[in-house]
């Protein structure tokens, strides 16, 4: 079982978001980067669990310059066997997905996993694009994943119902909460990660879309405090002032 897990570097979940260069660029000053939680907690950990029961190999892949090596080492410490870094400016989903698909095309991966979205650009785009480019089935938002022989079966929450979707390998699956539980790397994993191989490949793929301006949402007005025994007042305000009921 050869599994490829796509991971992305994102700002830590507590980062205060700010912009620079006339609001055209994310301000990276003092930003702590982490592995995108959906990629790490759910996709990578499920890949490792599958390898532990079925045998095989888990490779992680990410796009970016040398600065993304810290999150690659983190993923290797959690247990991935080896890593690929596509040396490029990860400017949009297309250029990343095309570069990953080009790399994966002749490597014979049985399964490609990624988180359902990144917590920075919230696209939900890369895994579906990779699947189309490789002519493979794509199952989005999986909250459970099992592999039996040549078949992957995935549970997906759709409109409050659960669907069980199965398909023949190879395929691409995106991971949502429920697929696995977060793993904290131990000292042995961290030591082992130092010597695991990181293959660097290049890509000249160009972006199709580009952010030309960022902005911050309008700040909320001051909270209106209602006395704890005045719940009729609160309901009236929700009706007449907020107009939501």
């Amino acid at each position, binding site marked *: 079982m050869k599994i490829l897990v796509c991971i992305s570097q994102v700002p830590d979940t507590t980062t205060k978001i700010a912009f620079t260069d006339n609001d055209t660029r994310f301000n990276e000053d003092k930003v702590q980067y982490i592995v995108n939680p959906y990629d790490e907690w759910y996709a990578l950990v499920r890949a490792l669990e599958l390898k532990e029961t079925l045998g095989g190999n888990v490779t992680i892949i990410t796009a970016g310059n040398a600065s993304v090596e810290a999150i690659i080492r983190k993923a290797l410490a959690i247990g991935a066997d080896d890593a690929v870094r596509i040396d490029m400016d990860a400017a949009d989903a297309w250029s990343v997905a095309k570069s990953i698909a080009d790399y994966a095309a002749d490597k014979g991966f049985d399964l490609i996993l990624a988180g359902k979205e990144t917590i920075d650009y*919230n696209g939900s785009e890369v895994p579906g694009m990779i699947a189309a480019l490789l002519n493979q089935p794509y199952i989005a938002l999986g909250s459970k994943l099992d592999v039996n022989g040549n078949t992957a079966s995935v549970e997906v929450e759709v409109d409050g119902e659960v669907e069980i979707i199965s*398909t023949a390998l190879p395929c691409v699956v995106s991971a949502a909460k429920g697929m696995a539980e977060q793993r904290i790397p131990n000292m042995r994993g961290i030591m082992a990660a130092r010597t695991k191989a990181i293959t660097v490949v290049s890509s000249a793929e160009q972006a199709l879309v580009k952010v030309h*301006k960022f902005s911050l949402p309008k700040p*909320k007005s001051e*909270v209106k405090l209602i006395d704890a025994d005045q719940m009729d007042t609160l309901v009236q305000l929700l009706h007449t002032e907020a107009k939501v009921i």
Partner: protein
Amino acid sequence: MSVIIFAETAKGSIKKASLEAISYGAQIAAQLQTTATAVVGGAISTEEAARAGEYGVSKVLLATNLPGHFDPMLVEQLVLKAVDASSAKIVVFSHDYAGRSVAPRIAARLKAGLVSGAVALPDTSAGFVVRKNVFSGKALAEYQINTEVKVITLLPNSVPAQKNGAAAAVESFDAALAGVQSSLKIEKKVREHKGGVLLTEAELVVSAGRGMKDPSNWNIIEELADTMGAATACSRPVSDIGWRPHHEHVGQTGIAIRPNLYIAVGISGAIQHLAGVNGSKVIVVINKDPEAPFFKAADYGVVGDAMEVVPRLTEAFRKFKAANS
């Protein structure tokens, strides 16, 4: 230059999120002085499909040979054929399960620029610029799409559907999928939890966290939600310790929701939780700790013990409903 919108059906009608996408696509078409066509798949009558016209499209292509349930691989083929048949340059989906499953595939097949989760109509005065939420709602970004064909998914509950037309002409659209075998086998599984309002579509949501102290105290949360006709949600800690099911977890690593009213009970308001609910129109926070950070993000706040405040609020909603029905 025309616009194609994919619309999904549920219980014989077009879904609410799809109606928003139809209206959005029709408004883009009007902006560009072209026509908009809705592609409708699933079990739906011609009359119901024609109602897409009320939201601004001039034509409806009704797929005649799709299975009753949504199958992303077949819908991909259907939409590609519709795009080809009408030389569409803009393809619109809702940013729901269907849109997230199919839009990236369509974009990759057509090498079209994709913006997913749009929250406003595009600015077409200079190029084609679409606004969307980024950093989990903590910021907005304007994306320039540089390709001739463009794909957009519209964030549900962000651009309201506008009714401004009459029923549209419906053409049955044989996308010649009969011979195409889906690579997916899809079965429904019975859900263990009781029915109620669907969290992702709910306009009113009551959510609770660790401040409830014990899972047995959730009866007052459910009673409030039932009285309001609201869906229930929870914070990450209580879903992680198994007090509530995972599918109720809203926040950075669970699901993101955008209801009109979000009532948070006993949730401190960590930044990761806010990332899942900051699209809510109005936020009410009930917490006994006046220093809870959630009050800074709230419109209305109540400082008090949930076990006392929530039953009072339920009673107030009951009285309000009785007086307004």
